[in-house]
């Protein structure tokens, strides 16, 4: 088990290196000038060139990449052009906020989605199944930023119950909780739909297998049969949970923008518009690393629940 994990971890290194090259190339080859974006509109071309030089953006791309990689290897992601804070600090703070949101929305989506999916599978063809499917379809098809705006209109503007934007207002845990409620709900919609659907079909696959009939035939109580089905669907469920959690982290750009939630998505959004290359690179790299590790964790978890996957 541990050697397997270690080997998978080693294999992750080339993946990450590849990711770093792609990240670097994408960020640099995308149109837009990192310095021009933070300079006042009225500033002249000469002023911009001078600043560019100060930041080392005048060197060849390969050199810039190696310099960057060398610093990344030492844990230094560089400094933001816009705020001049160390990128690692920006990434750390925003990652914490995004993780909170990703976790809360994932928990919400996983909880409801898994329950709905399983219920739907066990009540296949009945109204509960149809209701769950309808919820799933709505979940995956409603754009979550739109849902976010609707939530704001209803709960912030009309009812005045919950704040519309920001994270904390410096008001302590309760205020933080209040602020994260709406983005959590908005962000939970898509994974809720996806998870409901995947869990339903995974459970149905299992339910249609003969051993379920055999389990019932030997007189197991419905509760125990349910446990068997869940355990058999678990590998598939874990896969989708892991993927969705990853998406939650990386894919919340729009929701974080709508709610001005200071997470990685919001940071990414800002960095894109400000062409803040060090921040962009830092955030994407950290997210990519996170994604790779998450996949690894999901894989390991699967080997734990499914004896058919060889552990070596």
């Amino acid at each position, binding site marked *: 088990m541990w050697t397997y994990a270690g080997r998978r971890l080693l294999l992750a290194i080339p993946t990450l290196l590849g990711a770093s090259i792609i990240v670097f190339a994408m960020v640099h080859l995308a149109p*837009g000038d990192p310095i021009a974006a933070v300079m006042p509109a009225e500033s002249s071309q000469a002023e911009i060139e001078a600043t560019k030089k100060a930041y080392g953006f005048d060197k060849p791309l390969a050199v810039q990449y190696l310099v960057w990689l060398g610093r990344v290897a030492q844990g230094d992601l560089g400094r933001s052009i816009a705020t001049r804070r160390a990128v690692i600090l920006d990434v750390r703070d925003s990652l914490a906020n995004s993780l909170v949101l990703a976790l809360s929305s994932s928990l919400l989506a996983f909880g409801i989605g898994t329950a709905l999916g399983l219920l739907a599978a066990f009540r296949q063809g009945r109204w509960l199944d149809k209701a769950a499917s309808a919820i799933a379809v709505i979940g995956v098809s409603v754009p979550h930023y739109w849902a976010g705006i609707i939530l704001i209109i209803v709960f912030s503007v009309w009812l005045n119950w919950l704040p519309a934007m920001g994270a904390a207002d410096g008001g302590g845990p309760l205020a933080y909780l209040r602020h994260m409620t709406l983005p959590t709900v908005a962000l939970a919609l898509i994974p809720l739909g996806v998870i409901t659907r995947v869990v339903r079909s995974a459970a149905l696959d299992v339910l249609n297998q003969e051993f379920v009939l055999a389990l019932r035939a030997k007189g197991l109580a419905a509760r125990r049969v349910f446990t068997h089905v869940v355990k058999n669907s678990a590998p598939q469920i874990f896969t989708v949970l892991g993927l969705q959690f990853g998406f939650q982290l990386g894919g919340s750009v729009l929701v974080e923008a709508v709610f001005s939630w200071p997470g990685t998505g919001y940071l990414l959004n800002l960095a894109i518009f400000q062409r803040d290359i060090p921040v962009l690179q830092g955030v994407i790299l950290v997210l990519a690393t996170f994604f790779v590790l998450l996949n690894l964790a999901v894989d390991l978890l699967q080997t734990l629940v499914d004896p058919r996957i060889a552990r070596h």
Partner: protein
Amino acid sequence: MKRVVTLLLALVLSLSLTGLACAQGTLRIGMTASDIPYTGGQTDNGFEGFRFVGYQIYEPLIAWDLTRGDRLAPLVPGLAESWEVRKDQPTKWVFKLRKGVTFHDGSPFNADAVVFSYESIKKKDAPHFDPYGSGQVSFRLASLTGVHKIDDYTVEFETNKPTSFVPYQVCYMLIVSPAQWQKVKDWRKFAEQPSGTGPYKVTRFVPRERLELEANKQYWDSKRRPKMDKLVLLPMPEPTTRLAALRSGQVDWIEVPPPDSIPQLKGAGFQISMNSYPHNWTHTLRLDKEPWSNKLVRKAANYAVDRVGICKSLLNDTCIPATGVVYKGHPWFGKPKEIYEYNPEKAKALLKQAGFDASKHPVKAVHLISTSGSGQMLPLAMNELIQKNLKDVGIDVDLQPVEWNTLLTRWRAGFKTADNEGLNAWNISWNFLEPWSGFGRFFHSKAVVPVAVNTMPYINPEADKLIDEAERTFDVPKQNEILARLHELVVDDAPWIFVVHDQNPRALSPKVKGFVQPQSWFVDLTAVTVR
């Protein structure tokens, strides 16, 4: 089940009530900036940065009087009590500094602070040189070449040539505390614990999220000591987010509410504050190439645009029609011969006179526009309407929308690059706070790209003469007269399609009292109270 529901309701209610217990006298502002403007002195995010961060924490030697809305905001003494150009040496300016002013950290303001601040912008080898802040403001101080201390409360600036525009440059140089910088010796750290002399001082700085300021009770001008305790600045680039935040009571003031939300906001009791200020929204035309090389065609285009329609139908009267670089009532407006109103017949006649014909020989042009952007208002909708207006008189304009920063980058490079060769105009909004940004950079033959941004290029010896004369005229009313003549000339030449002047709408909660919107990009928040 019922109990669970009751509990949940109680929880939600208690959560929502905690939001109401806010401190009295706190003004929370939703800015359009996507980030907190740089707090380390020479701020960024353009004039919004100056508006809410620069001019609140720091002060220039010469400041804007922002207390009245009925006239263009004039320059008044700030940290300098007086200034004058040496009669014998017109490249030297003597500033008498205000005494008894202290920075937020308690250290005194004096000539050393002025020299220190100047060097942080202009002296590249100084240990306290701030490359970032310098990049933001250095070009606004283009004529200044040096400063030295005469005594503790007198400094002398030097310029590269005799120019009367010096006060218009000095007003952007913010004075930072040398003592505070010596404590941290790093501009990034300084930005987190900034120290100026302004009416507000920073108490909390959460990068990218919020900046909290409190009233500077020791502010030197007793008339301008803030009436409220706290000021909170929140970056909210999304218009809908700002609107929701205002309507949900999370902020008391938002910049630029979406125009179509204004009637609703008014109906819900919010205050909409607007005023003219030096902003124009134009199409800058390419003058060395057909079709805009023909003055008659340019005039025709200016007569073809239904400015009133744009303001009424698209922008809910958050702007006024523009018939020149500056608006009517501005000291530089003068008496232009042409007043461009909506007159398609006249436009057609002018086109015919120029040898064009809607059916046989239509005017064709490609204009680069942005999809959004600071000060760009509603570029897509407005440009579609303009396109239709022009089409009606026989001018076919092909609109090429690009992202805002792309537009700026391409514009800076001028029309003569490979990318831009096929273009005939760009649509960008400008400020005209002072003579250089209003005229010099666009209409002087020496300002042709890459020196400055005369991209068209507009080459007119008479304009050069007037600009130079204005720069040499140190008497402000006389200078204004010269600039008015220049404006008359430019309006008649129509190198731009003048479209509208923004009115800088902002929406304020009914609790906000005492705000006067000046004719300026900046605001005075000291008289504001929040009930």
